[in-house]
């Protein structure tokens, strides 16, 4: 694997991308760029357009306007497979893995290693097992048995296997849609560690999360979406933790709400405001 850490060509770049669903404007003039070996956190409220953006990047949707460049070259994907062939790998929270299939069979689904020629060409199951074992241990993942059904793995392990798979198949850009949102603290830590591993191997990572504790330690850049538009991309230096948390939790709206409620001078409103305050302080 080549480490093009210091390359100045973005691994992935979009310019003024828009996407409409009928009359719904899901994305409107979104631009962002990502260098190899960078982790970008994609932040924003529900319905902000995060999933639409990554589905556009991963070949599920075609943008209605704007440019999409991979390694500096314009691309247009008709299917997720085409994006995959260009090194854009996406790990979806739900359909990352098929629960009834073994870890090995999942890992190689669609790209099975073979031995033999013509009609004697067969799925090299032994080799597949060895590769899975090797790749997972490289990422520090301890799978007891590569033949166990994926359904028996924990959520964190499942995400990790999906990430290891993407890395093994030469992903240059790894897109993760809320990989940690359903996980406990420890499991989420495991996944974050693999993201760091992937970054160390020169892979560009786009990471969607609602949790500032997951975003801040791992993110190099933060792109904030709001109602289909981007509020900009910030580096860690430009965006102190408090400000990020504020932006992530839709802080503006909360403040305004608090203000309004204060205006009622209602005891109950005070209680509600306190509750909101407390919730904010939790982060």
């Amino acid at each position, binding site marked *: 694997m080549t480490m093009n850490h210091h390359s100045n060509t973005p691994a992935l770049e979009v310019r003024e991308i828009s996407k409409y669903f009928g009359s719904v404007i899901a994305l409107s003039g979104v631009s962002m760029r990502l260098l190899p070996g960078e982790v970008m956190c994609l932040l924003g409220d529900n319905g902000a357009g995060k999933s639409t953006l990554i589905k556009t990047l991963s070949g599920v949707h075609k943008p209605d306007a704007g440019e999409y460049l991979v390694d500096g070259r314009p691309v247009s994907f008709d299917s*997720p*497979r085409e994006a*995959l062939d260009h090194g854009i790998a996406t790990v979806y929270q739900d*359909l*990352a*893995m*098929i*629960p*009834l*299939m073994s870890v090995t*069979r999942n890992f*190689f*689904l*669609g*790209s*099975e290693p*073979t031995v033999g020629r013509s009609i004697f*060409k*067969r*799925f090299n*199951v032994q080799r597949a097992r060895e590769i899975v*074992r090797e790749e997972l*241990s490289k990422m520090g993942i*301890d799978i*007891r*048995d590569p*033949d*166990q*059904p994926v*359904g*028996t793995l924990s959520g964190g392990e499942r995400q990790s296997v999906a990430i290891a798979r993407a890395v093994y198949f030469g992903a240059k850009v790894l897109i993760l849609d809320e990989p940690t949102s359903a996980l406990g603290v420890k499991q989420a830590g495991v996944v974050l560690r693999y993201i760091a591993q992937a970054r160390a191997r020169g892979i560009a990572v786009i990471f969607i999360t609602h949790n500032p504790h997951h975003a801040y330690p791992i993110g190099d850049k933060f792109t904030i979406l709001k109602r289909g538009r981007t509020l900009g991309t910030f580096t860690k230096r430009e965006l102190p933790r408090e400000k990020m948390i504020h932006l992530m939790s839709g802080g503006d709206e909360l403040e305004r709400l608090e203000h309004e409620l204060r205006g009622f001078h209602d005891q109950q409103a005070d209680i509600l405001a306190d509750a909101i305050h407390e919730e904010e302080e939790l982060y």
Partner: protein
Amino acid sequence: MSGQAIDKGKGDERLLRESFLKRWLRRPELGAVGGAVLVWFFFAVVAGNRGFLSLRGAANYLEVASELGILAVAVALLMIGGEFDLSVGSMIGATGMIIAILSVHFGWNIWAAIVVSLFFALIVGAINGILVIRTKLPSFIITLGSLFVIRGATIGLTRLITGRTQVGGIKGAVGYDSASALFTSGIQIVDPASPRGLSADFPISIFWWLLIAAVATYVLLRTRPGNWIFGIGGDEDAARNVGVPVDRMKVILFMLTAAAAWLVATTQVLATGGADTLRGEQREFYAIIAVVIGGTLLTGGYGSAIGAVFGALIVGMVQQGIVFTGIDSDWFMVFLGAMLIVAVLVNNYIRKHAAEAK
């Protein structure tokens, strides 16, 4: 760091050996293998002295099991791929009748009739598959439709052409002898248990059944398309996203079930010397029952061809075993239905525990 990795490797190797039993428990066909043994013992005890244990008894239930088994193995592949084919029974009637009409009514060489009949099956199978893909309707609905269309057209056209619903006289058709050698010949084994030195006739369909099951098992477990079938049945969209040719595989699987129906029909037509428009009725359900008893999930993504073999064997043993016991064979369906439900419960239980035994 590297020392740690080596330790980990060692641990994994040890676990691999320990998990041999667990690996077995994880196989979908486990329940059906156990069930087949149980059913065999049951009839051995109840009807052992009435011929069930004789070679002729074995030939008898193996013949029934083989005809169902050929169908069930193909249906198992399709069901693992997440789809149903309810039209295989009608397809048996249609393909058999095509052979009979072409060879008897129109005087064709029977080989030509058999080949045309196969093409018909493959085309209708492909149409089933394409309709399922294009309409995105459940295959249950699409093939329920083709069940009636094929059966109705078979009856209607046969009556239109021949004026009847049955066509006989195939044994006199040109090329019958060579065709019969391939599809209906058998191995005669003198039954040592028979006092009059009667021989048991093991038909060649048993060989076809086992050969097809072996090929299907190989394809499922050791080829790329096999892995795709599991993937498609497990999660069609996920499979498509990683580049599995989902649509092409589905069409092929529907063509395969239709071709299996054709093979069963050819065997039957050559063995009995005639075709009947109603042949194959309800075979689609028997096939599904055999497949499900064999451990394949109704929802797809999990199952085995070997399981379907044992499922068909169980159905065959029960169907013929009841005759040996002297119980009225009307009760067969009661057994079959009850067995289906028990088998699904047992299979679910095993699968749950195999999954939990991490």
